[in-house]
């Protein structure tokens, strides 16, 4: 009787867990393993002659100026987008959860909209905004600086284009993080603000001495995830909006990887880039985790 019961239980467990494990192994674990493996081969893709070259791909990578350009672009994007998005979403979240604002709910609903749109949709919207001749942005600016001047090429100017992307990425991310911070700010007890008010602490002081320290754990986790997801979102936006152009000015890590793998058909080299990006994002999140470490506060 008991043996039968144990058997029944292990059959149940196996049937429940096995499909998930099998799918995970086939479509996530093995491909991840393959990224690392293929980075050690020289391989044109469709042909079968894979040649083991050890770390040679990485050696070439170190001297690849295009890769360094994509590296610079990615770091610039991450730095700008992270700082601005975090600062703005924290401030707006604090305002919306502390102040009595009319139409608070509708504002919250609106702010979250960009997060539900496909990156392709966002790219199409921004290409309408940034269009040099009939774009929304230039036509507004035209009112102030006169229409007879040459239009600003938001996506065509090599120096400007990266900041145009920064704005698009901030637009996409800000609502999501704001709603997230509002949720965690709601758990800060009201009594703390009441006593701070009694003692005459200003709102800005309250923000820095009460709100920020108490949701610090949440900020830390979101920061780590934000950096990792910025690397991905930058790829998605670049792929749909500029495709790395003009002339490589917006090439980011993963778009360069994708380009090497498909357009250039050097899969091995592309995967070597993938490995470097993988390690870079892990290193960066470890660094952020280390730098932002504080004693967690209880409340």
């Amino acid at each position, binding site marked *: 009787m008991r043996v039968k019961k144990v058997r*029944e*239980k292990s059959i*149940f*467990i196996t*049937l*429940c*867990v096995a*499909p*998930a*494990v099998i799918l*995970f192994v086939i*479509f*996530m*674990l*093995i*491909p*991840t393993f*393959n*990224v690392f493996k293929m980075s050690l081969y020289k391989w044109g*893709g469709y042909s079968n002659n894979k040649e083991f070259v050890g770390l040679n791909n990485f050696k070439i990578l170190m001297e690849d100026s295009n890769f360094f350009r994509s590296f610079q672009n990615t770091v610039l994007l991450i730095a700008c987008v992270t700082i601005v998005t975090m600062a703005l979403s924290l401030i*707006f979240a604090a305002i*919306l959860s502390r*102040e009595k*604002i009319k139409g608070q709910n509708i504002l919250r*609903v*609106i*702010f*979250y*909209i960009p997060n*539900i*749109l*496909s*990156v*392709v*949709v966002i790219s*199409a*919207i921004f290409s*309408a905004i940034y269009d040099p001749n*009939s*774009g*929304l942005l230039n*036509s507004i600016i035209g009112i102030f600086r006169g229409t007879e001047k040459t239009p600003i090429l938001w996506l065509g100017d090599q120096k400007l284009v990266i900041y145009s992307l920064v704005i698009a990425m901030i*637009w996409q991310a800000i609502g999501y993080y704001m*709603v997230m911070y509002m*949720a965690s700010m709601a758990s800060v007890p009201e009594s703390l603000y009441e006593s701070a008010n009694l003692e005459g602490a200003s*709102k800005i002081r309250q923000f820095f001495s009460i709100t920020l320290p108490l949701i610090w754990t949440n900020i830390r986790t*979101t920061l780590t*995830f934000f950096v*990792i997801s910025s690397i*991905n979102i930058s790829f*998605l936006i670049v*792929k*749909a909006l500029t495709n790395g152009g003009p002339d490589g000015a917006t090439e980011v890590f*993963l778009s360069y990887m*994708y380009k090497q*793998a*498909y357009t250039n058909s050097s*899969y091995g080299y*592309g*995967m070597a880039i993938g490995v470097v990006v993988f390690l870079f994002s892990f290193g960066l999140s470890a660094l952020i985790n280390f730098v932002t470490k504080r004693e967690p506060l209880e409340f």
Partner: protein
Amino acid sequence: MNLSKLYKIFIYVALLALAISIVIPVGWVFLASIKENSEFYGNPWTLPKGIYFQNFIDAFEKAKMGEYFLNSIFVTCLALLILLVVALPAAYVLARYRFFGSKLINIMFMGGLFINVNYIVVPIFLMFVDADKFLRLLGTDGFFLNNLFVVALVYASTALPFTIYLLSGFFVTIPRDYEEAAYMDGSGYFRTMVQIMMPMALPSIITVILFNFLSFWNEYIISMTLLTKDSKTLPVGLMQLMQAQKAAANYGQLYAGLVIVMLPTLILYILVQKKLTQGMSLGGLKG
């Protein structure tokens, strides 16, 4: 007094500016989608002269957005179905039972949260290329590439870590008494799971469906890579329209396509926005 009034005004201006920067471009796309092509030259702020519905007909027929729409619905629904059937039992068992290897499997799925699809899409593609080559050697047609079912399977698989993480987090919080009572009454493991535990998890299941619906519907890197021939999903079709527009300046069609892609998500969002923003604080983070 004056200072606090100024502060209040500043807050309202800042909040409104952000709201406007979101509402205006999205609303503008809707207006642009009913403009005639000739209306796109000159000032972009003019209102449409009439409702030019032909844009949508063109987008549906000429740009094949109608066909892509059906593809997207098929892939999204199938992927959600596979995901729920696979992830729910796994999440339940992993949250409830300790067995040989359970710790390892838990760690594996946690690690999976950090694997992003964009890194592994190339190896997945190559894996299918190899598999198809092998099938052709056996004399059958290729199966894996250009197959909507396979795309749905890949979607579901890559969503597993996040979904299992979210659902197990919920199952852990339910007291064991419910199951013990069920076992006492002679209910088997399967019946207990399906009839007692899953209905209780319904709020979490709805959150899972919402988040994954959005990510499957909006996804385009996997579908762009794995569907190389005629059948595409909506976002990939939209990208095609964007590229075609650069050459042919067919604005009306492009914005009609844009509306077709975002309208379902917007409607869903308006219907369930409370649930979505609540679920977020419950589920934590997305990758």
